[in-house]
């Protein structure tokens, strides 16, 4: 096992393994997304209160979950890179930032599109929405900090520290709907009680969540491969890589 991780942390080995893994992840993602979309948009009945507008949930909630999940991946791998100086952890951390930012943007934008017909407003400065907006700024801050420093390893270290400090925001987002009296509805699925959602809506929601997670998985591998290429562009194995291609 340790041998496996040691091998995996070699950039060249990672580049190969990730390249072979990506098509399978794409396949699994499509396998979840197509039935997820069909069940969510066609089969699931309209909500008794919100009509068909609630179907935004199948985008909004998976995107919001991903915004938190990717942040944790970014912070934890950033910490691993910081403590054990593992280059690959740095690469994963940095590759996660723009993907996480885009899922956070998607959660905010679809929330807005859901809020307008249901609450009568695109935006309110309540705890859930504000803390999620702060999350977007944390992602953008990590990206800006990484790009502002010339040396990639120093940059990764600085970005990791910012990412770790920003972790305090994660429980705030999750519990915001319970700690404060907000316009945003309480948790539907992620609570200790039974989920307060019918199976016909829960199944497409979980399928879409799985699809989004798999989508992130191959995106982060694709971006990490690019980052590895960029860092290793002078090495012999990268040169032999194009030797085969041309």
């Amino acid at each position: 096992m340790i041998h496996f991780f040691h091998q995996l942390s070699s950039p060249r080995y990672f580049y190969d393994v990730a390249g072979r893994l990506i098509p399978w992840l794409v396949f699994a993602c499509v396998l979840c997304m197509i039935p997820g979309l069909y069940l969510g948009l066609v089969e699931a009945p309209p909500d008794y209160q919100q009509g068909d507008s609630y179907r935004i949930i199948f985008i909004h909630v998976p995107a919001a979950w991903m915004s938190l999940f990717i942040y944790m991946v970014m912070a934890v791998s950033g910490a691993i890179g910081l403590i054990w100086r593992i280059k690959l952890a740095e690469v994963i951390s940095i590759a996660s930032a723009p993907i996480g930012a885009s899922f956070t943007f998607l959660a905010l934008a679809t929330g807005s599109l859901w809020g307008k017909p249901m609450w009568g407003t695109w935006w309110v400065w309540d705890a859930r929405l504000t803390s999620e907006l702060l999350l977007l700024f944390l992602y953008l801050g990590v990206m800006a900090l990484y790009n502002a420093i010339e040396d990639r390893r120093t940059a990764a270290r600085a970005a990791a520290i910012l990412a770790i400090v920003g972790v305090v925001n994660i429980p705030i987002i999750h519990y915001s709907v319970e700690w404060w009296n907000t316009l945003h509805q309480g948790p539907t699925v992620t609570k200790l009680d039974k989920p307060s959602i019918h199976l016909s809506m829960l199944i497409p929601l979980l399928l879409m969540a799985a699809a989004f997670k798999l989508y992130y998985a191959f995106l982060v591998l694709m971006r990490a491969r690019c980052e590895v290429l960029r860092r290793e562009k002078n090495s012999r194995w990268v040169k032999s890589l194009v030797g085969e291609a041309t």
Partner: protein
Amino acid sequence: MSLSEFLDMGGYALYVWSSYGLAAVVLIVNLVIPLRQRKKLLADVTRRVRRAARI
């Protein structure tokens, strides 16, 4: 259910379809960026290898 009924989304067509459309755009852009980046990086390496071979 007819197709026009489906597209109407119970009167919420604008909100529902903009959400799904936006999701599609975000996912596709995220996919295109690393694909183009990889192509560019490999082209860069190829160019440098050729230049080195000439010298």
